[in-house]
């Protein structure tokens, strides 16, 4: 009777229970599926927060959340500054779970890890046997620990370089300077095509733009290099799976060191394991689950548990050290464990710490000790010889403190509404300051009523600065506005000064009041006999805040007749210009 309600053929398609008698849905709702859901969630969250890092979308979202929960950022800045800035305690959200579960962050949360895994999966053309070999541990996986040691020693000496390779910093930087502008270009072309070819209103697609309301396509110095790096690193997955995560990632190395103490780990039951190596087929960390599990390499992806045909693997709290309880000789297949026959011929089940010899740690530490002076004594970031164009955003701390804090994540550059903030190339910041924020007034200018860069900076390299403090009003009236540099005139290139031609755009756009640019009026007879009234601009340096709108708007666009250099910045006593402001700076400190 019940058969009348059954769709014909249903019986044939009904999922079969598993061979071990468990119901069919345990196949679908496996822990690896939950892991994938977690990766999708965190990757989407990462993209969402980057998307939100724009002044019309921020609305109080914690846009730098991923950088804040990155415990390497918190720990390395704590080493370099002896403080934990603002939200960096959030690193505990990752640090504590790692101490319990191991490097689960790498395969459950890290958006860069997810990207690598996804690309490796999509472009995997290998057979199972090949994959097993490709996922074996290689000695080159030690490199990440050595890099970590170099970076942490440098941090202790006062140069924070983790951002070069920290996956979150690297990915935020890449999205900011390479991927978001590329996607904006595509969006703007799509919008034009829709409007002009199909007569449709492209406004609903505005959500696709990373910088809605920006009047120009955003451009970033050296975007090609950042883009090349991500293409190269992601492409390496085709050669060595999870190349970045296994070989280079300093955050992975840091979490790997912490994993040593994790009470949970993958446990291999020697009475079930047949040494078939199937667990290596999709092993993300190349952590040897088939032998002595390398806890520091394991990403806790659970693929091995999924793939084990003998059900010999499990993720267990404080797994038994089988070796100590075995009786007999496992290599000959004669051992027993609590009366059960030991099948696996490999008695070791775990290797807790990273496989880095002590002398190599020492070598790396020496590398860090040497790298610090090599970078720091390269003039670019010193009191003398610094680049006049290394103009830091308002609220930045003094340069040596800045280099202790900036992680080159480029969140400030992402949020900057005028595109003036640019990743430094070697010419402004040297190698030590590579990709740190500097201003390029040919691209944009520092908008007077904007403090967004200081809002999103996760490490306080740009200290959170209220508008009142930036403008020097209200309770900051005595201290005066924050100045990031000083403007100068090149009279030979200036139209009124050098070319008998009226102009003074600079004076018009100068946003401070009273204006930092004044004008002398002069009536002259030009070469052709015509009389012309010229207003010739000059600087009032004590009023100039270095915002650079004069340089940006100067009609002599290639090499402007008014230009800002870093001298006179409030944050530095060494780089002050006027006695007057020197006095104010001293009062402040």
């Amino acid at each position, binding site marked *: 009777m019940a058969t009348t309600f059954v769709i014909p053929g249903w019986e044939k398609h009904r999922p079969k229970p598993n061979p071990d008698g468990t119901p069919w849905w345990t196949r679908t709702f496996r822990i690896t599926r939950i892991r994938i859901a977690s990766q999708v969630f965190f990757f989407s969250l990462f993209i969402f927060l980057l998307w939100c890092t724009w*002044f*019309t979308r921020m609305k109080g979202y914690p846009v730098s959340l991923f950088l804040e929960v990155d415990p390497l950022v918190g720990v390395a800045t704590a080493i370099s500054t002896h403080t934990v800035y603002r939200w960096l305690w959030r690193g505990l959200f990752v640090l504590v779970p790692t101490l319990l579960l191991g490097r689960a962050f790498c395969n459950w949360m890290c958006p860069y890890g997810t990207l690598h895994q996804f690309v490796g999966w999509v472009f995997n053309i290998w057979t199972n046997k090949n994959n097993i070999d490709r996922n074996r541990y290689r000695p080159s996986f030690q490199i990440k620990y050595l890099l970590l040691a170099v970076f942490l020693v440098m941090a202790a000496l006062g140069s924070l370089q983790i951002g070069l390779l920290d996956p979150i910093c690297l990915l935020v930087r890449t999205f900011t300077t390479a991927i978001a502008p590329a996607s904006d270009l595509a969006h*703007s072309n799509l*919008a*034009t095509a829709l409007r002009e070819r199909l007569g449709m209103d492209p406004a609903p697609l505005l959500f696709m733009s990373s910088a*809605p*309301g*920006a*009047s*120009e*396509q955003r451009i970033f110095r050296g975007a090609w290099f950042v883009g090349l790096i991500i293409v190269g690193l992601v492409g390496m997955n085709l050669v060595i799976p999870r190349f970045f995560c296994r070989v280079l990632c300093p955050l992975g190395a840091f979490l790997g060191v912490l994993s040593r103490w994790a009470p949970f780990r993958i446990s291999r039951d020697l009475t079930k394991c047949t040494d078939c190596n199937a667990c290596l087929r999709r092993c993300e960390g190349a952590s040897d689950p088939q032998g002595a599990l390398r806890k520091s390499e394991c990403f806790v992806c659970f693929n091995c548990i999924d793939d084990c045909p003998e059900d010999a693997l499990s993720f267990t709290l404080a797994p038994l050290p089988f070796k100590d309880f075995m009786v007999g000789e496992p290599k000959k297949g004669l051992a027993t464990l609590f009366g059960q026959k030991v099948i696996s011929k490999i008695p070791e089940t775990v290797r807790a710490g990273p496989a880095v010899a002590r002398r190599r740690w020492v070598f790396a530490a020496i590398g860090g000790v040497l790298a610090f002076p090599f970078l720091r004594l390269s003039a670019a970031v010193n009191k003398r010889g610094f680049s006049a164009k290394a103009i830091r955003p308002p609220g930045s701390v003094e340069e040596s403190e800045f280099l202790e804090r900036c992680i080159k994540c480029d969140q400030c550059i992402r949020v900057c*509404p*005028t595109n003036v903030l640019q990743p430094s190339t070697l010419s402004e910041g040297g190698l030590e300051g590579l990709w740190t924020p500097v201003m390029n007034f040919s691209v944009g*200018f520092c*908008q*007077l*009523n*904007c403090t967004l860069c200081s809002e999103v900076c996760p490490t306080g390299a740009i200290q959170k600065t209220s508008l009142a403090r930036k403008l020097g009003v209200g309770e900051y009236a005595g201290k005066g506005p924050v100045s990031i540099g000083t403007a100068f005139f090149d009279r030979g290139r200036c*139209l009124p000064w050098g070319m008998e*031609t*009226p*102009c*003074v*755009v600079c*004076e*018009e*756009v*100068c*946003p*401070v*009041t*009273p*204006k930092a640019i004044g*004008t002398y009026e002069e009536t002259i007879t030009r070469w052709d006999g015509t009389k012309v009234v010229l*207003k010739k601009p000059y600087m009032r340096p004590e009023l100039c805040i270095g915002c650079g*709108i004069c340089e940006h*708007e*100067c*009609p002599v*666009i290639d090499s402007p007749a008014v230009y800002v250099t870093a001298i006179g910045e409030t944050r530095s006593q060494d780089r002050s210009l006027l006695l007057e402001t020197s006095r104010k700076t001293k009062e402040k400190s």
Partner: protein
Amino acid sequence: MDERDHARLTRRYLLQQAAGVALGAGAAGLLAWKLHDPDGERGKPKRPELTLPHGGYVIEPSKVLPVLGVATGQSIPALVRAAIDAVGGVGRFVQHGDVVVIKPNVAFERAAPLGATTNPEVLGALVHLVREAGAREVRVVDNPIENAEACFVRSGVQKAALEAGASVWLPTPKDFETLHVAGATWIARWPFFFRPFVGANKVIGVSPVKDHNLCRASMTTKNWYGLLGGRRNQFHQDIHGIIADLALMMRPTLVLLDGTRVLFRSGPTGGSLSDVRPGNTVVASTDSLAADAYGWHELLERRDEELPAYFAKSAARGLGNPDWKSQSIKRVQAG
């Protein structure tokens, strides 16, 4: 031909090969002929050159209604309504189904009380009136100096416009087209924020009263600067000539001079409340030169000073009459 050669090279193979080569060569030749560009001119991108409607957006002049409507008082919506009513009421300018472009001055990222931008309350009241008159669509547009969205948000213009039922059109690079302005000295061909004007049939300017070092005063005529793109920073080399060109370029339906606040020094950016004084006035006019001249004398209070040169230059082109005292004026006290 021995047997081996025969197997290697059949007649069929030879014919197929020959046909393929002939076809390929023919297609390539045809393509080359079609795309041929003997002097390199064909390959250059073609930019359409557009114009605004002949005669601009002006309405039929009236013989009875005053040219200037000046309303003074405290309540801003009442001021706007009274000023427009004084020159014939909004129904004279906007009819049912019109698409109206409103051009405020949102050049800088400044809060409204600093007087560097059009008062959002004035804009809101204007949009409201235009909607009331039956406009199908109201577009609020400007191409500011600073980041457009930041300027529209910080000045409060965006909020006021949206709440009153207008749409805000922020400029993007693809919204600009080369506009041909016949007779203009400098901007006969210049990038113009064109897209909002597609399908529009009325244009209303609403600008604050601001001091300006170079051109001395920025009011409704200078306001059209914000419709241009390109290398605007060259305009200062002959600012008065440019403003006269702007007057030629845009013949509006109506202008509103927002004298609720007067930025009397440190313009056009301002930045301090001490640079601003209350004006409590809104002027409506079909003659922007008359409105601006009124602003110069009565709002900037520069009665003893000569009008800036752009007035005479624009007037010489027949674009208005700066001698406002000789024209019909209606003053009302409102609110």
